[in-house]
């Protein structure tokens, strides 16, 4: 992907595009939004796209031949092509619009999984997966008898890849792994995992919910079979996500949801599915949201990935530096250089909820809990952690505000 025609990333400038970042919390604190791993905010360009589609071009897609329907269809399909280019996918048909990462992974589990797994087969996951990349496989296991195996986490927050070869076998049908952990920020070496999976004859699904918004994605270079992510974590509207699937695979997979648009022919006796991508987009899709996702991609592509990554690393380093000075606070996971812009931590004697609540009293928005990764938390013997996660609109000043507020929390609880 070329970075030739990008503009330098200036967070102060970027913030001008995000109306919500200018609001106050509790009537006096400027919002410090550090909950980006849960969901990101939208720039006015995306909001404006929603308004404009609704006010000028909205109709149902595909099946109409009147002007509005032609326009909606054109906008919707051009969003698909934008996603294709963004991921460097070979074909637009490889892009399926879903509601989000969760639906994307469930689609693979129900469609590919039900048709291709059974007793004696195995699916290899990791101990750091989000529930969205765990529960669908537990459900599949209950349906088909496929066995789940897990690459363990090391104490340092990295995957124990020495186990990889041992865990892979000819029985392994699929390796499903996060490109970036939503708790630790861990970034496993995808190339190595894909290569090992290929040698074992297994397919690879990448849960890229935390990756795609922050790093350049090239599905062909990854050589991944499936890639799932969500629009709302990358400045896009909520209610839309993507499943990328390799064409040859998608073309051989049975439909998931049944309904309008995914069929070639229906009778009282049965039905014949349509070609991809229609086959996997039953019913009225999230039209306006998908178009808005295209605009979010345009917005992101203004900047170079190098700039975005460098900025997030700067904030992450600063956070580590400041937080490590706070007595009783322990950061989970790898060093800033080896992870994404996510900093999860625990206090020895203060519960994560209390931390998040008190930070909010200072206008600082972070998340507390298990972050939909209970096995990971169990692995590190903690019930809940507090998580600050950064994006291109966050500033160093905000990291300082986080650290100062944390110190007040500590004092409040007399630590």
């Amino acid at each position: 992907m070329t970075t030739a025609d990008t503009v330098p990333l200036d967070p102060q400038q970027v913030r001008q595009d995000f109306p919500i970042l200018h609001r106050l919390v509790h009537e006096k604190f400027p919002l410090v939004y550090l909950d980006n791993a849960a969901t990101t905010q939208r720039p006015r360009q995306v909001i404006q796209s929603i308004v404009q589609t609704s006010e000028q071009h909205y109709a149902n897609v595909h099946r109409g031949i009147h002007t509005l329907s032609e326009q909606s269809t054109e906008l919707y399909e051009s969003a698909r092509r934008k996603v294709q280019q963004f991921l460097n996918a070979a074909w637009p048909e490889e892009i399926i619009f879903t509601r989000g990462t969760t639906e994307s992974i469930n689609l693979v589990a129900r469609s590919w999984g039900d048709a291709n797994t059974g007793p004696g087969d195995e699916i290899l996951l990791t101990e750091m997966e989000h529930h969205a990349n765990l529960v669908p496989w537990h459900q599949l296991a209950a349906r088909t008898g496929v066995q789940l195996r897990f690459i363990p986490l090391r104490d340092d927050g990295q995957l124990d890849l020495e186990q990889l070869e041992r865990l892979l076998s000819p029985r392994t049908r699929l390796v499903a792994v996060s490109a970036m952990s939503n708790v630790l920020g861990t970034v496993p070496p995808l190339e190595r995992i894909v290569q090992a999976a290929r040698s074992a004859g297994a397919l690879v699904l990448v849960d890229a919910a935390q990756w795609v918004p922050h790093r350049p994605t090239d599905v062909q270079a990854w050589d991944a079979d499936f890639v799932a992510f969500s629009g709302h974590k990358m400045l896009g509207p909520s209610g839309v996500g993507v499943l990328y699937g390799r064409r040859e695979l998608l073309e051989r997979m049975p439909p998931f949801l049944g309904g309008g648009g995914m069929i070639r022919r229906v009778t009282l006796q049965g039905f014949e599915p349509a070609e991809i991508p229609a086959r996997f987009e039953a019913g009225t899709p999230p039209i306006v949201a998908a178009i808005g996702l295209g605009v979010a991609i345009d917005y992101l592509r203004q900047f170079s990935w190098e700039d975005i990554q460098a900025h997030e690393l700067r904030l992450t380093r600063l956070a580590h530096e400041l937080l490590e000075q706070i007595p009783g606070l322990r950061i989970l996971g790898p060093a800033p250089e080896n992870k994404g812009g996510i900093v999860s931590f625990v206090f020895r004697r203060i519960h994560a909820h209390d931390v998040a609540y008190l930070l909010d009293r200072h206008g600082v928005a972070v998340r507390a809990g298990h972050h939909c990764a209970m096995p990971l938390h169990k692995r590190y013997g903690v019930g809940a952690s507090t998580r600050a996660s950064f994006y291109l609109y966050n500033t160093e000043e905000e990291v300082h505000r986080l650290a100062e507020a944390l110190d007040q929390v500590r004092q409040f609880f007399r630590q």
Partner: protein
Amino acid sequence: MFSGPEEEIYQEHILEHYEDPYHRGHCPRATHAHEEDNPLCGDFIHVELHIDPQGVVREAYFDGEGCCISQAAASMLMEQIEGKTVQEVEQFRAEDMLRLFGVRLTPNRQKCCLLSWKVVQQALYSPLQQKDRDGSAARRSPGQDASSAPSPAPEPPTKDAP
């Protein structure tokens, strides 16, 4: 921002093909045949070809149900491919079909225009069994059940697999 049709698509030459189509009907010596729907609207086109041993399309017939665009396009295409070799027909791409049609179409209407073209491309590789040849290449009439095609167990089409 949008490429609306600047010109009226129902031009005289199109209406003529629609009202008086070329080779609409049954190919007496068909060697190849194929049929497909436009899943968006339920239209269908059935094509029968007589391809001689030298690989030349001697005769091309179509039948089906659909809009002016899809039926006129089919009629034009039949005219176009007769006398061409299988290779030449293969090399006749979607763009060529749209050009042959001669009127700018919006994406949804392009699908109507390209339906017969898709059916022809498939028909080239769909030889009839000997027993089908005696004048009865299975054909649907409008509204008739495509009883053989649908099945409760969805069977993904494999023809597109590379």
